[in-house]
């Protein structure tokens, strides 16, 4: 029986997400038969079978993130086939470590040359008996290990970081079983030991403590435990009421992008309500007219057109901040990103050269891109290169408006809220008219509030007097 460990499919990749299995348990497979599809940070990849035989076990489910070097599939090999040569090389031993990675590999037991460990008595003698201070106070002292050998554990194999962490936490590394290469103790092992120590604490605290817990100390302890639990969740352990969602691929990319937007771009947001009476009438008139025919005509193409016209008047809104040159780079082409909710998460397909397109062309392109994005068929190049972005904050629910985050490295994002009947002051009276909120978030390095307000004025004007958009 041979285990196939997930190899590094690019250069220096650490994980991949399983997209789908192409085989099932009990199925017989031939050498090089496609087993599954995985998505790495670089590409969608078919994995061919390194063995011929019968599938014994699938070690992951679609959507799971698998670390490089961890088991992917177990195959019972068919007799002494020619393929068995490969089995010896790629298969893992019991520990799950095998020479599966060429060049970047996990260190396997087959490795003849292991680095000699430095058994430095110096390390342990030089280690201050740091646990002793803690030991006087049972509250902050993890149980017995700290009282054993020197904290830090000079004899065990661990990185300087792990040694430092062990010292700080008063843990003896010699009491921990390392799961890293050659039994090296990893941060995860230390955290696991710490968690075990924490959960064992209440009884030991009661037994050893020479004084009762004060109420404050007890609640502090509880909070600390809760915190450790949640840290533990990050490392792999979960509380019974928690669910872990892995974030490879799109979700990870969104997370990184939004973190960049929120932490590196100084945002400000402005809001305005516009009267959509004329826009509603224009859309009704155009629907089914010759230029549009059967095509679906939403308000989005009008928003794009109005945005293009407003950008023409205020080109600085269509720009990016050049970090290195401390300069503003204005783009003369207007590529409008359309924030689109899909089953995979937020995608931003791009209507390229929107300034050269008619309303009908924009409608057709937007429909095409959004459909492809929702079907998961959009090409990567249609998802890059936007210069300004529209988000329809009212599309997914009863949302009037919001403060959108900029799509880096752009200067501006425009949000449109739900278009619905609203009390509108007309002259001296209040009338019910269709309207929607516009919100624009800008990069304050590039644009000041007054410019944004003028840009907003232009947007509102084009949407309230929309004849020029068609």
């Amino acid at each position, binding site marked *: 029986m041979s285990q196939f460990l997930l190899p590094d499919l690019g250069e220096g990749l650490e994980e991949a997400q399983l997209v789908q299995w192409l085989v099932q348990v009990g199925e017989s497979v031939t050498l090089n038969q496609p087993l599954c599809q995985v998505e790495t940070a670089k*590409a969608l990849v078919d994995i061919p079978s390194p063995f011929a035989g019968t599938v014994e076990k699938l070690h992951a489910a679609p959507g799971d993130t698998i670390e490089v070097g961890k088991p992917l599939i177990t195959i019972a090999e068919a007799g002494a086939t020619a393929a068995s040569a*490969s089995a010896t090389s790629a298969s893992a031993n019991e520990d799950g470590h095998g020479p599966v990675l060429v060049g970047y590999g996990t260190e396997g037991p087959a490795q003849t040359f*292991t680095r*000699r460990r430095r058994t430095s008595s110096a390390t342990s003698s030089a280690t201050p008996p740091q646990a002793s201070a803690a030991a006087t106070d049972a509250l902050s002292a993890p149980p017995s290990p700290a009282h054993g050998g020197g904290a830090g554990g000079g004899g065990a194999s661990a990185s300087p970081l792990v040694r430092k962490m062990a010292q700080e936490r008063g843990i003896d590394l010699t009491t921990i079983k390392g799961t890293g290469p050659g039994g090296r103790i990893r941060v995860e092992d230390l955290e696991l030991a710490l968690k075990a120590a924490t959960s064992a604490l209440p009884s030991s605290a009661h037994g050893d403590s020479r004084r009762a817990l004060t109420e404050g100390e007890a609640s502090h302890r509880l909070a600390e435990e809760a915190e450790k639990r949640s840290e533990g969740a990050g490392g792999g352990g979960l509380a019974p009421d928690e669910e872990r969602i892995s974030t490879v691929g799109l979700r990870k990319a969104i997370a990184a992008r939004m973190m960049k937007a929120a932490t590196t771009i100084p945002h400000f947001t402005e809001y305005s309500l516009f009267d959509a009476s004329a826009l509603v009438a224009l859309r009704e008139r155009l629907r089914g007219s010759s230029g549009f025919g059967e095509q679906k005509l939403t308000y989005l193409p009008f928003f794009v057109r109005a945005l293009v016209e407003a950008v023409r008047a205020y080109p600085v809104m269509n720009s990016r901040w050049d970090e290195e040159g401390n300069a503003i780079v204005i783009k003369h082409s207007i590529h409008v990103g359309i924030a689109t909710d899909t089953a995979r998460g937020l995608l931003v397909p791009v209507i390229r050269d929107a300034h050269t397109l008619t309303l009908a062309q924009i409608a057709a392109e937007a429909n095409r891109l959004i459909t492809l994005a929702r079907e998961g068929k959009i090409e990567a*190049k249609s998802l890059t290169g936007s210069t300004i972005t529209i988000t329809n904050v009212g599309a997914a629910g009863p949302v009037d408006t919001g403060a959108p985050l900029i799509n880096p490295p752009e200067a501006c994002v425009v949000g449109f809220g739900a278009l619905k009947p609203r009390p509108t002051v007309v002259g001296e009276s209040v009338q019910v008219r269709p309207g929607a909120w516009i919100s624009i978030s800008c990069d304050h390095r590039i644009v000041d509030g007054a410019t944004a307000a003028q840009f907003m004025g232009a947007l509102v004007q084009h949407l309230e007097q929309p004849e020029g958009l068609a």
Partner: protein
Amino acid sequence: MAKALDTKDAREAKPPRGSADSSNNSGDSIAAMLDANGVLTAEAERAANISDEELRTLYRLMVVSRRLDQEGLNLQRQGELGLWGPYAGHEAAQVGAAMAMAPTDWIFPYYRDFAMAVCRGIDPGAIMTIFRGLTHGAWNPNEYRFAPFIIPVGTQVPHAVGFALGCKLDHDDTAVLVGFGEGATSTGDWHEAMNFAAVFNVPLVFLCENNQWAISVPMRQQVSGRIADRAAGYGFPGVRVDGTDVLTVYAVVRAAADRARRGEGPYLVEALTYRTQAHTTSDDPTRYRTEADVEPWKSKDPIRRCAERLQARNAFDDAFAQAVSEEAEQRALAMRQHLLSAQTPHPASAFDLVFANPPESLLREKAEFIEALEPERGE
């Protein structure tokens, strides 16, 4: 060097090249072999007198190479290779050019010229060990007259020029072939090599395997005009050929090598093809091109085109195709077995590869390194 300078001086007495009457030089007799699409004309095909058996050999080598390429990809996906650079689409250029050279000629390949190495009889399993990180070069270049794969872009081109100059100074009739991609033509090395090759009139065939992509950079962002036309700027002829037609590449490179052997100097062959796969296994081509971009080139598949040529000659049948396909399977399996049973070299062998007589300090470092690697006592 003095000899070379003499030769140059002698040539300077002749009318300069690249002038209006350059059509007289024999380079154009090669250009005349081709139609407007860069394909061998029927007349030139007859004149080239390439037998059915020769063409069947080219077909066989292309099919084997394609299968080995697929196995390389499989092995990388199975964690057995650090990296693989697919060469599907290059078979006609590589097999055609390598087989056009005489066995005594030299070839200077670039990293994607795997099929050329196969044509030279080097064991594919041995070549693969390079991509497993077991060796820097898996064959003795002198034995196969095949220089090592060169990973840095374009540096093999001046190597080849220097080597060809040596051949010329030795007064033997060796010709040299150097392979490179169109991306390499953007490097300074390439331009220096082109210039020197012309100035010293060396017996060298430049083969540009123009697959239209330098990783993600398209040809139009690399080159204005045609690469073949650049040779004229250095004073020698060049031609663009259909790089998906093995017969054309074979005939043209053979003519260019013969020309070089006659002392008529370098020649540039631009074999236009398409990289249908990723640049390497670390590349995702969907980020910069679409399936629609690749589609037209699938109909120009080198293997299919060669089969069509054989069919036109009534030299292709199912039994032949079946036998070739079986041979390809067997060689792929043999390559896999060779690779997976290859020994990992001792890490300290890295100290042995630079100096013939290593200095004391290096030997000391090597000893310390070996000591540091010793397995821990008691384990």
